[in-house]
């Protein structure tokens, strides 16, 4: 209905292979970006900016990283939070130890540190796969958090062990209000998402998917499994590291290893599975779903029952409903939210037909 495709034809491959080949999608994206950059910072409340949008964007980046590894390269990993922790602490140390370092540079370097660690912990992927690999990556999760926690140097021997995130300063301008931080996070997210999209649809993404779908055939084509898998680990960890640094600096505003526990890794896994494996946009949907659904359920139940029902019961009920929703989701749309969106788009393109 929204899409009008008659008369749009492509006369060269560049047109067909651009990021969004459909004019309507480009308009939609333009509107979304315009709203995100020019409208939301000035209209959204602090609650929305700092409690919903910022963590959502940060975790979307992490989910994107997880998705690159798991959805595209097919390497089941459970170490996302570990790499986030690495990114967060690396970022803090860069900011702490190098005075002049602008925040984006620190974030980028933190991503690199996380990527380096990711390569090391990706090594088992050469021998093992599937659930075995997932459990192997759990080792990285525990190990990274343990190392950071154990060795005071990472926290510059702070007595409390929980360090306060520094203010974000970029070339002398500090970004401390929710709207300013939101813009910083948004910019980094947009740039990295664009890069991820380019990789995913380009030769890099095809190599990942080749390894995922049929590694023998990929090898026979001349693809090095070692390099491809480690590349996926590195890039995935980079995204996790950047996401972790942003999460710590713009959302938690404190940097402590315990915030990056195994539960967070699992939540990132859920995000990818619910959002849609092997889709970029799905990472955003999944992060939104896992992050925001409990919040909205909480708000909803408090609004529904008020103080009439024991809050313990409503909290437990929220969990049950969350679980039921996940199960229903898997039954009715196992390919995730991204698939739902894709179906919707397809329907809009074929409207009034469904198929």
């Amino acid at each position, binding site marked *: 209905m929204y899409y009008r495709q008659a008369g749009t034809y492509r006369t060269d491959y560049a047109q067909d292979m651009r990021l969004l080949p459909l004019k309507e999608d480009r308009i939609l994206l333009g509107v979304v970006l315009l709203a995100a950059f020019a409208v939301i910072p000035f209209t959204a409340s602090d609650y929305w900016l700092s409690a919903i949008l910022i963590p959502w964007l940060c975790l979307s980046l992490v989910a994107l990283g997880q998705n690159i590894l798991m959805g595209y390269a097919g390497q089941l990993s459970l170490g996302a939070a570990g790499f986030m922790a690495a990114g967060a602490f690396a970022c803090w140390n860069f900011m702490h130890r190098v005075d002049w370092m602008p925040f984006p540079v620190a974030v980028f370097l933190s991503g690199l540190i996380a990527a380096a660690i990711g390569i090391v912990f990706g090594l088992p992927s050469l021998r093992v796969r599937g659930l075995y690999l997932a459990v192997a990556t759990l080792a990285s999760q525990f190990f990274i958090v343990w190392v950071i926690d154990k060795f005071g140097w990472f926290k510059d021997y702070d007595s409390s062990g929980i360090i306060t995130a520094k203010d974000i300063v970029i070339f002398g301008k500090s970004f401390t209000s929710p709207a300013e931080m939101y813009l910083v996070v948004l910019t980094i997210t947009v740039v990295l998402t664009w890069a991820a999209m380019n990789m995913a649809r380009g030769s890099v993404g095809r190599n990942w998917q080749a390894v995922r779908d049929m590694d023998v055939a990929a090898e026979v084509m001349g693809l090095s499994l070692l390099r491809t898998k480690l590349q996926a680990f590195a890039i995935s960890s980079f995204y996790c590291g950047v996401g972790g640094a942003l999460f710590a600096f713009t959302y938690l505003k404190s940097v402590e290893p315990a915030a990056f526990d195994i539960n967070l890794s699992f939540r990132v896994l859920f995000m990818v599975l619910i959002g849609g494996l092997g889709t970029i946009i799905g990472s955003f949907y999944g992060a939104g779903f896992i992050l925001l659904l409990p919040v909205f359920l909480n708000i909803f139940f408090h609004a529904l029952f008020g103080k009439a029902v024991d809050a313990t019961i409503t909290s*437990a009920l929220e969990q049950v409903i969350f679980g039921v929703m996940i199960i229903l989701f898997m039954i009715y749309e*196992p390919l995730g939210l991204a698939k739902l969106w894709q179906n919707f788009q397809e329907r809009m393109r074929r409207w009034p037909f469904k198929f």
Partner: protein
Amino acid sequence: MNPEILFFFEVLLGGLLAGVMYSLVALGFVLIYKASSVFNFAQGAMVFFAVLSFVGFMELGLPFFLALLVTVGLMVLVGMATERFVLRPLVNQHEDTLLMATIGLAFVLEGLAQLVWGVEVRRLDLGIPDVPIMWIADATGIFVSALDLVAGLVAAVMVAVLAIVFSRTKVGLGLRAVADGHGAAMSIGIPLSQVWVFVWATAGIVALVAGMLWGARAGVQFALVGLALKALPVLIIGGFTSVPGVIVAGLIVGASEKLAEVYIGPYFGGGIEGWAPYMLAVLFLMFRPEGLFGERIIRRV
């Protein structure tokens, strides 16, 4: 005997006994994975749900064995419900989807347990003293708790019972057939759904037993959910499909993590127990990617 050597044995024994406790939790995973290739993320939640219900029934005034019976019945119901509402609609779906569904199931079970029985921490007294058996301590200087021994015994009995069930009963045969491929199970005339119900109910009962032993020590409470994490390295080393494998792996993990913590831990300020079993599992995988007793993965072209 040299006290250091004695201490070493004590650590080793303690580790082995702790390993048995891990194995009990891991056993539930293996049962389900064997039958349906589902990694049951809800196993920890099942442990919590089962033992909390058991204690809850006791609180309602049921005597021990009646409560046990009712809880076993409840776990069978959970198995049936899981088969009907989760597995059946998802038959033939990708593994990731099933995994995700069990995550949903975990939330449901955790929420239900807390909804019905509340969030209070409860005590579970099995009547088995968790104190050193004095005559052993006197004779050898090694402290062994009666509960540990009972746990070891229970684990042994359960493995034996499961082994008999698998090899001698019709459902067990069906299960083995299922493990070989769904088509095969159909061909020997056992409906897949029955096998699944059976397996999930059995896993529920195993969860109940594990929960009771753990609950007797640490209290019946939410933290039991986290036990699943302890079971993972055991599964890796043992292989996802081998019952004897998880027992042996449990012993290996238990012993090695205790030894590592006691002898290596102090050099790093301790706390390495948290990741040591995983590192062990990773190292293990480097040499035997299919686990201790897992089926060998053969690369076919």
